[in-house]
Every structure is written in C-alpha cells, then in structure tokens.
C-alpha cells in the first residue's frame, strides 16, 4: 500500500474517530426529499393556476380589437407569464435532481412537464372552472381583478375623475 493511500485512510478515520465529521441523520434526507416533492407539486399547481388565469384574462377581454387593446394592456397580469417561465425553469431543474430523470429521455420529461402545465391551465379555462371561481371560492377576487367584463375598474376611474359622482351616489 503506497504512502498516500495510508495517509488518506489515516486522515479519514481519525476525523471519524474524533467526531470531527458526523453522519447526517436519516430524517435530514427524508425531510429534504419531502420538501423537494412538496415544492414541485406546489410549483405545478401554481403554474396551472397562472396559465388558467392568463387564458381567462385573454378570453374575457374578447378579440384583440383596437378598442379593447388599451384595456387588455392595462389590466393583463403581465407578472403571470414571467412567473410561469421562471417556474417552468425551476420545475425542470427540480425534475433534473430526481434520480430517475437521467434514465429516461430528459427532453421527453421536459416536454411532458410543460405540456401538462399548459394543457391543464387551458382545460380549466375551457371547462369553465374559472367562471365558477369568479363567483365563489378563494380565488374569486383574483379572477375578478383580471376579468375584462368587470366594471369595477371603469367605475373607479369615473368616480375618481368626478364625472360620474352623481350617477353612482
């Protein structure tokens, strides 16, 4: 056995014996895996919700006519697509950390992940769940805020300008 091999053995074992290095407990790794799993699920749910919000906002504003163009620009949730893109990148990074990812075609996993998020978000809009959520549920206020037919924003503008005070009083 050569000298450097003995040195490595001695150094490693002395660190273990003197407890300079300690094994991390099992719960530490379980907690890490659990947190990563929850983060991934949470991220997927958030992304689906945001995609649904984007499609809902686009649909409720109607066709992109010149009249409605300013309205869609002013009330469109621009932060949502930015979060969706950042979230997708984070999701792909999280997926890559999972042990199985290199055993499959990673591009295929990415394709499935993005497709699932986009399709689920669009399906929520097509099936009319967002129309239910605008009336009741915890997301009611959120959807109302980006509803193109919502008159609240228009009313506030008129009230603030003073022109509609009499009408609304």
């Amino acid at each position, binding site marked *: 056995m050569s000298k*450097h091999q003995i040195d490595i053995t001695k150094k490693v074992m002395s660190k273990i014996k003197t407890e300079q*290095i300690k*094994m991390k407990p099992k719960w530490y790794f379980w907690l890490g895996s659990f947190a990563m799993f929850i983060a991934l699920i949470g991220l997927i749910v958030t992304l689906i919700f945001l995609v649904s919000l984007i499609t809902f906002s686009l649909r409720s504003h109607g066709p992109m006519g010149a009249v409605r163009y300013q309205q869609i620009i002013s009330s469109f949730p621009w932060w949502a697509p930015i979060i969706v893109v950042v979230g997708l990148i984070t999701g792909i990074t999280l997926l890559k950390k999972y042990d199985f990812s*290199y055993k499959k075609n990673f591009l295929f996993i990415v394709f499935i992940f993005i497709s699932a998020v986009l399709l689920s978000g669009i399906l929520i809009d097509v099936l009319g769940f967002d129309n239910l959520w605008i009336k009741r549920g915890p997301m009611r206020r959120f959807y109302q805020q980006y509803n193109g037919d919502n008159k609240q924003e228009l009313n506030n503008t008129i009230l603030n300008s003073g022109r509609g005070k009499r009408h609304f009083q």
Partner: protein
Amino acid sequence: MRACLGRYNNIDIKMKDLKKLTDEQIVEIVRTKDKELYLEIVIRYQKKLLRYAENLIQDKPKVEDAVQESFIKAFINLNSFDLKMKFSSWIYRIVHNQVMNTFNKNKREMPLLDNIDFDSGHNLELDMSKKEIQERVNKCINKISVMYSEPLSLYYIEEKSYEEISDILRLPVGTVGTRINRAKAMMKKICQNIK
C-alpha cells in the same frame, strides 16, 4: 492497516466474515452499529478511486484531496445511500462530483477536440481486442476530452458496465454507449502515434 481492523470494531465481526460481506452490508453496519468499520470501505475503494481520479486530473495532490474529500462526504451522507442501489456506483458518483468541483475551482481548460472528425458507428472492437484498447486507454486517455475519456476509463479501466456508468455519470445508457464509441474513434485518431 487491515490488521488494525479488529481494534476498530466493537461488534463481533471476524476478519474472514468481513471479507465475505458486500459493500452494502458493511454500509448498513457502519450506519447502525459501528462507524469505524468504514475503514473497510476506505481500504476497498481508495486504490480504485485514486486511479479513477488520476485519469481525470493529472495533478497528484489534487487527486488525493479529491478522493479524501469524497470519502468524507460519503461518510457524512451515508444515510442518504439507498441500499437497493450499488454502493460502488454511489461512491464513484461522489468522486466524479468532487473532481468536477476541482475543475470548476481551478478553471482548468479541458482539451476540446470538436474539430476531430470521427465515426461513432464504427465498431472498433472488431479491429482491436479489449486488452489492446485497455493499453491504449492507459497511454493516451489524457489526450481526449474528459467528456469522452471519463466513460472510456470507467468502462475499460474500472471495468464498469454501461448501467453502472449511467448511474455514475447520470447519463442515459444510450448516451454512455455513444460516448464510449466516440472516445474509441477519437483515441484511434489521436493516439495512433503513441506507443
């Protein structure tokens, strides 16, 4: 060093029995009963890991540091090792990561040989025996990019299977095969003058 093992053990494991134990069985004992039995793991792997790391970095002190640090990291994270997996793949993976960290720290320029034209589909094993390839790998592994030399050294020098290399490098098995074939083609072009 191996003779000292009896002193480290608090549990009743005879030397003969110890040799019969698999890596995974030893890991379980280290985790649950006797952490000092980790010595057996170090003895079993240090030579192989030093050789593997030496094929990636040619700086001996850095190789030793990387292997030592890998053993320490492996011990600290031993509870994360899944006993259903192969321990050798797990510890080789740790060394691989450690070597890559060394590369990044030192910003070492790896040889990029993108301009070399090679045919990945050609089966070089028809032209050369495994022993001949092993000899060539030993001689000129440092002449080709780490991306290709690493799977090549794992296959021919460390004698790992494609599945094991896939687990160590976290690459699909198909990619491992492609890289090994390309590495062989590169080696044939670059190393033909080295004897």
